[in-house]
């Protein structure tokens, strides 16, 4: 659990640094997200008069649910202690709980920006969540399980091979991950005061330690999605429980390498593409949903053939 917490800001910092380099800027140092968090944590909270307890409790719950969800994803080794507590559907639903609280907090102060953010976030989620679940369906039909560890183990096996539906599911999952993490074609993580912002509008009223928690939760979420993609579609190098320290260390090294590679790809993708209008997002996510459904259905066709 502590590992994901320690690594998550690093990944975000790394993506920011790479993006800056691609734009021929110097970019903030890698440790900047850590410094941001620490600075925010030390500051006092400025609370609107109309804020209720929902507004103050939400950051802690959002952070806690995201952290627990991230800790349930196998990072560098399968066979986590608590992996039986939640399968992939439950992880998706946990993230849903976090989003529910955050959207409520956006509405709590009663400003128009918070409302915009919540409304759009829920619209995006209402398409991204089914798309994600269709990807889960494909994977679990293939692996005969909804447990992430079992899926990873079974996709590592020799009898799976390359499949069209896996490729479709991968594309679908990446699209969902981009939308859920408020990355560029859907939302811009680096802007304020733009009418198209979604996530940032929702948390506009937050300050101090509350903001730090929400930022940490979004770092964790990015790490979670990258870990899921890495663990399911690129399960090589995952250490299996009880293989000894060397295997764990090797698994950790491979995991960091995977994170670096995906961060690199994300940065290139974000630099190369333009932000789309809010009402184009449903088309984008509808495509992800269709890909997920197609992946599920193709599974039957290929199995029959």
């Amino acid at each position, binding site marked *: 659990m502590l590992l994901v917490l320690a690594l998550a800001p690093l990944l975000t910092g790394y993506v920011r640094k790479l993006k800056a380099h691609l734009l021929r800027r110097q970019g903030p140092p890698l440790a900047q997200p850590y410094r941001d968090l620490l600075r925010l*944590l*030390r500051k*006092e909270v*400025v*609370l*609107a*008069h*109309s804020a*209720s*307890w929902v507004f103050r409790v939400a950051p802690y719950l959002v952070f*806690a*649910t995201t*952290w*627990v969800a991230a800790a349930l994803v196998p990072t560098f080794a399968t066979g986590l202690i608590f992996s*039986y*507590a*939640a*399968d992939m*559907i*439950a992880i998706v*639903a*946990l993230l849903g709980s976090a989003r*529910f609280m955050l959207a*409520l907090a956006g*509405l*709590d*102060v*009663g*400003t*128009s920006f*918070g*409302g915009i953010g*919540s*409304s*759009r976030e*829920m*619209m995006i*989620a*209402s398409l991204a*969540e*089914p798309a994600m*679940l*269709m990807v889960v*369906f494909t994977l679990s*039909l293939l692996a005969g*399980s*909804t*447990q992430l560890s*079992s899926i990873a183990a079974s996709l590592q096996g020799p009898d799976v091979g390359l499949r069209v539906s896996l490729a479709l599911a991968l594309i679908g999952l990446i699209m969902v991950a981009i939308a859920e993490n408020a990355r560029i074609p859907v939302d811009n993580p680096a802007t304020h005061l733009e009418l198209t912002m979604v996530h940032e509008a929702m948390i*506009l*009223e937050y*300050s101090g*330690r509350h903001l730090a*928690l929400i930022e940490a939760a979004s770092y964790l979420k990015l790490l979670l999605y990258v870990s899921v993609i890495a663990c399911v579609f690129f399960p090589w190098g995952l250490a299996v429980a009880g293989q000894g320290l060397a295997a764990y260390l090797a698994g950790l090294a491979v995991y960091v390498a995977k994170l670096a590679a995906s961060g690199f790809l994300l940065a290139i993708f974000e630099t190369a593409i333009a932000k789309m209008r*809010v009402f184009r997002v449903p088309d984008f996510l509808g495509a992800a949903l269709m890909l997920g*459904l197609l992946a*599920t*259905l193709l*599974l*039957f066709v290929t199995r029959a053939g």
Partner: protein
Amino acid sequence: MALGGLLWCIAALLAASVAAIAVARHRAATTFVYAFALGVTTVALVIAAASLLAPDALSGALTLPLGLPWLGARFRLDALAAFFLVVVNLGSATASLYGLGYGRHEEAPARVLPFFPAFISGMNLVVLAADAFTFLFAWEFMSLSSWALVMAHHRRSGNAAAGFLYLLMASLGTLALLLAFGLLAGPSGGYAFDAIRAMPPSAGVAGVVLALALVGCGSKAGLVPLHVWLPLAHPAAPSHVSALMSGVMTKVAVYGFVRIVFDLLGAPNWWWGAVVPLLGGVTAAMGVLYALMQHDLKRLLAYHTVENIGIIFIGLGLALAFQAAGMRGAAALALTAALFHVFNHSVFKSLLFFGAGAVLTATGERDMEHLGGLIHRMPLTALAFLVGSAAISALPPFNGFVSEWLTFQAILISPALPQWVLKFLIPAIGALLALSAALAAACFVKAFGVTFLGRPRTPVARDAAETSSWSLGAMFLLAGLCLVAGILPGYFIDALAPVAQALAGAHLPRQHELDWLTIVPIAQSRSSYNGLLLFSLVALAAGLAADVIHRWASDAVRRSEPWDCGFPDATPVTQYTAGSFTQPIRRVFGTVVFRAREEVHVPRPGDSSAARLHVQLRDVPWDLLYAPAAGLVDFVADHLNKVQFLTIRAYLTLVFGALVVLLMVLVVWQ
């Protein structure tokens, strides 16, 4: 004996409703009736729960010399009936408790008090009935007493029309059920359920009975497209009755469907497993989209009932498909998921209607656009409503998630089915289910956010006061159940085992003996969920974060004006409203499903009138199905009207002609 005790409870409720007619005008009558109903339903709840948990004490049967003289009234208590009695009496007991506080604000108690216990006794009777005549009689009794409650405030605009539509649809449903039982009983006329069970109908007849049962029970439960009356009639009743109708009466309709299709109809055909989940999936998605478009809090909740009925029918349909393929374990899983959702929905829907009732008493408003900021004035109601919202949105660690998770697990077994149609269809239904779960979350962010959060939009919302402690007690009881059933689902699933065993011929593995109270429907390597562990981990992480931050970092708070990106807005009117919140979703789905059209009227430069946004939504099932049917009835009535004004010779000719035709039919028939 358990069954005798339950029948005495029903008799006591009927007596109370007769007594209430006499004393309704008395001031203490409200307290008396609700306290009495609370006591009796609690006794019935305990008896039903005891007979569900101790299966050897079950299977009581009794014939009373009532009703048709050669048949008597048969009653039977088995596992299925016991489970639904738990649902009915839990809902009724909490509604009575809530009524102790809420009923004091009733302006016409004489129109509510006599029918409230009668309605409860009607629902209990339906579940206990063991022959077709008693079942239909109790069904009609339940419909009519609830109709009377819908019409309690008949002078308010719209209520009379809602009552009329309800009466019409209830008659249609009863007609369908009457025909279904007629077909089931066959030419020999064995109306007792035992006789029907002894000789199951042929496959063709069974298909027709399934269709009739779908119409009969589906119209009561609110399956699309037979749902039109529900969102009008449920909110028209007083709030605790709305909770009973939405949370409990729809479940009695589900009971009717399960009883007819799983118990009486014999072995299912595979295509039943395609039709029923498809209807369920469409109902779920349509229900939640309708709900999203509503700004009336109670009507929104009523549309959500439609959605949840859809989810329940998905589970029931999957169970039929698995049963037809002989996969008993999978059928038991799907059936358990559906029945667990029956229980869960009755709990959180009652809770939400109670919350809406509390808002209604405090402000007199059902329209969300006139509310806002109620969390400051009604903190406890807000907390309970928040729990209900999270539970109905299928968010862990609450109970709604567990039953939807079980349904997903059942969907994931579907590729093992032999029929290709089902293999392709059921994953698509899974997508509909996922979509409706995600949209439900959006809808309840709207319902809770616009009603309770933000700044008050009207003076009544600003000056609201917390509701009475009786009502709060009922709400927190249900909120606690939502949490307990969410983090300890194993006990509830085990309690459902005898029902699944009786109907599907198998039950899920015992859950509560597993380590750490994890639930494992099939096998550990396949899927497992542990609500308790998840809840404790989240609580631990949140507590840890709060403790560390408050100890080592900062815990200073300063109050100020909202920041709002530097555009502070003076009036609460500039907040996001329910309409604007759903605008993106309306644009994504509404254009197809509701043929939504938006027109913006912007005044010309120099014109000082307000700009207007006009949104038009159309109810497609109404346009395609109900409007033509109503037109046809009008047309026929207009033309038959002429027959009233004929001469005596013409009438005599008509009579003679009718006689000849009937005789000819008889000759041909023989």
